[in-house]
């Protein structure tokens, strides 16, 4: 434990010694900051968040501590964070799902209006995957194959299940939905040949290069920068999109100047090499920047789409 204190102290010292990048006339934190992450340590949000924390230390000139509050796909952290002091020293590197999905399927204490949104840094990678040796290599071939054979799909969220079910109904497929209990459960099912195709929240990144998996389509609104040839469902003529972004969330009463400072910090981080490298190379997520207003508008759009989808 002692060693850790020395290291933390050392890190704090380093952070203090280097001059912050933030503009002189901008809001600046006056004490160490806390970054809340709504997922357990080790996931892609956590990895990006921890590297982001180091970029922010450089930007704001204050140490940034990462606190994990896992549970309910971010819902636990959002519920607690809602009541944090709106002074900018506690902020959340949040996943939109907690706001676009959780309130739709369950009662939450918070809602979109309880927070302010100060810029998006990372985009989502939701896709449709199949084993590399599957009898179909594209989404069209999958539909062809499915017209002849009963199929199984490993789902992760009720939304991707609903989208797939709608497509199956439209195309006349006999499709069974298999729950996976989170991202880690998909790979064994697909590699073991138990299911025909599956939802990927990002796990395809390490299996596509080996040829173990094939990515057939993306749920996202735009094509992935990593797989320019792979179409989105919209490209294929299905009117469904499912997206997710990772952004700075601040408590609802946060003043404008602090929100602006975080927007600028996000602008700095998406250009900052360590953060970009880890996000793109290791977690294989695209770095996407949106300012606060655009973030909030996108969030409301996705929420409305999810509500429409789940209303069926």
């Amino acid at each position, binding site marked *: 434990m002692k060693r850790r204190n020395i290291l933390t102290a050392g890190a704090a010292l380093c952070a203090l010694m280097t001059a912050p990048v933030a503009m002189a006339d901008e809001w600046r934190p006056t004490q160490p900051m806390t970054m809340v992450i709504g997922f357990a340590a*080790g996931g892609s949000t956590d990895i990006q968040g921890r590297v982001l924390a180091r970029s922010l230390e450089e930007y704001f000139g204050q140490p940034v501590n990462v606190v994990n509050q896992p549970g309910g796909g971010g819902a*636990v952290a959002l519920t607690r964070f809602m009541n944090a002091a709106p002074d900018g020293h506690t902020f959340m590197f949040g996943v939109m799902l907690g706001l676009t999905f959780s309130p739709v399927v369950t009662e939450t204490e918070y809602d979109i209006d309880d927070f302010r949104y100060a810029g998006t840094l990372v985009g989502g990678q939701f896709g449709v995957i199949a084993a590399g040796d599957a009898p179909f290599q594209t989404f069209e071939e999958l539909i062809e194959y499915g017209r002849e054979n009963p199929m*199984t799909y490993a789902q992760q969220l009720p939304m991707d299940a609903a989208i797939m079910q709608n497509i199956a109904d439209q195309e006349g497929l006999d499709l069974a939905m*298999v*729950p996976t209990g989170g991202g880690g459960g998909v790979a064994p099912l697909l590699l073991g040949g138990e299911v025909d195709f599956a939802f990927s929240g990002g796990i395809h990144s390490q299996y596509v290069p080996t040829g173990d998996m094939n990515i057939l389509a993306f749920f996202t609104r735009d094509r992935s920068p990593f797989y320019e040839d792979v179409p989105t469902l919209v490209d294929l003529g299905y009117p469904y999109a499912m997206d997710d972004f990772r952004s700075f969330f601040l408590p609802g009463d946060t003043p404008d100047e602090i929100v602006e400072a975080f927007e600028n910090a996000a602008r700095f981080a998406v250009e900052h090499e360590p953060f970009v490298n880890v996000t793109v190379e290791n977690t294989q997520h695209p770095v996407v920047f949106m300012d606060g207003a655009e973030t909030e508008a996108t969030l409301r759009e996705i929420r409305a789409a999810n509500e429409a989808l789940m209303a069926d």
Partner: protein
Amino acid sequence: MDFSAVGAAASEALSLASFIGIGGGVLLGYVVGVIPGLSRSVAIAIAIPMTFYMSPFIAISFLIGLSKGTAAGSAVSAILLNAPGEASSAATALDGYPLAKQGKPKTALQIGLLASVIGDILATIILIFVAIPFARVALMFGPYEMAAILAFALVFIAGLSSGNVFKGLAAGGFGIFLGTIGLDNQTGLPRLTFGYAELMDGMPLIAVAIGTLALSEMFVQSEKLRYERETMSVALKKDQSDRITWPIFRGIVPTILRGTGIGTFVGALPGLGPSVGSFMSYGMAQKASKNPERFGKGEPKGIAASESADNAVIPAALIPLFGLGIPGNVSAALLIGAFAIHGITVGPLLLRDEPELLYSIFAGMILASLIMLVLGWYGLMFFAQITKVPPHVVIPIVIFFCLAGMMLQGYGTFGLIILMAFALLGYLMKKYDYSFVTFLVAFIITPMLELNLRQSIILSRGDWAILLNRPIAMIFIACTFIALVALIIRTFRKEKPLADAPAD
């Protein structure tokens, strides 16, 4: 295998920096393991930021050393205080604590340490030479097989505590009930959460485990302190009789080998985890023993079985991680994150793209085991003195660590309330002789069993005939039925069970 890479790997592993890094990891892990209330996954999560300042090889070896250290260290609190910090060492306490109470704390600790280190080294060797090429074998264990294995584990481990079968059913049933709380896997709708967002991922395992295992034991001991003070203290013998002897060691070697095998099997299958491994191993050792009635009363084989399996799970959980990119358990999942922060993507690509790093990590793992042996051997001389400290000093300290450990998990006040509730539950279960082991194992297994069973039913589309193509699943289903029938026969044939409830 690329031998030039192996040579380079060995030389990197033997540098001074790696000795300090790995040794530091093992030491830190050992201390964290000794403290009840702090667990392996917390230790790794806390340590990840420390590794920012290390080279990738040292960082990863540091973390693996850390998780090995916690596994060995958690045996200490299980043996000396009957307060296992993690569910996976609960089986160690069943025999370790009675042996320590008989005035042989050092013997118990030495057995635990040797079993840990041997199980660990053997499993690491299996990982290096056999497992990665054969990691795909794990894929043969699909949802059907996993559901069958989990059902077997549930029945088999429930059969271990041979008290009143109806009390056992009550305890197991309650564990199953609590295991169903949380978001439904398929629909995402909350079940029995009563509007608490904190319960969406289910009752936090860490609160249930620390509460029923460690904190409740402190309540039990406080009560003993009040009413039967004179029997509480253990006199440490001054002479050399309290140490492991060659006959004892020879006796436990087959148990260690069996435990290693079980631990490796359980670890290599993604999802099962160390507590299933250690209890399975304990049960198998009891079944194989000529004197099963000695288990629960300080039988060295009981300690050896549990510890060897618990430690073998850690390297074995890396088999699917390095071979397929699938983490075997929570700690392995945390390692993926640690790797990623250092710019390494774990999985099949690692062996292809960076074999040297992989071999360095293997060499580091073996080094970690050896450091653990030395550190543990001298450490236990020191820790065995804990038995001399009066209980009225130890109990509050342990309670403090349990509560502080819970706060560290980030569950906040809600976590503390849950922890206290389960401590109370554990206290009542111990007092009225309900098996908390059955309860805890049922609680841990239920979510996995439910998911795999649901997957199987959906995939089979309700057709039983599919099992005919699944010989492994058939075998485990048959075993489950045999275990079930044996349990029923034993209950009705004898008024008195075979052995007393080993836990109490």
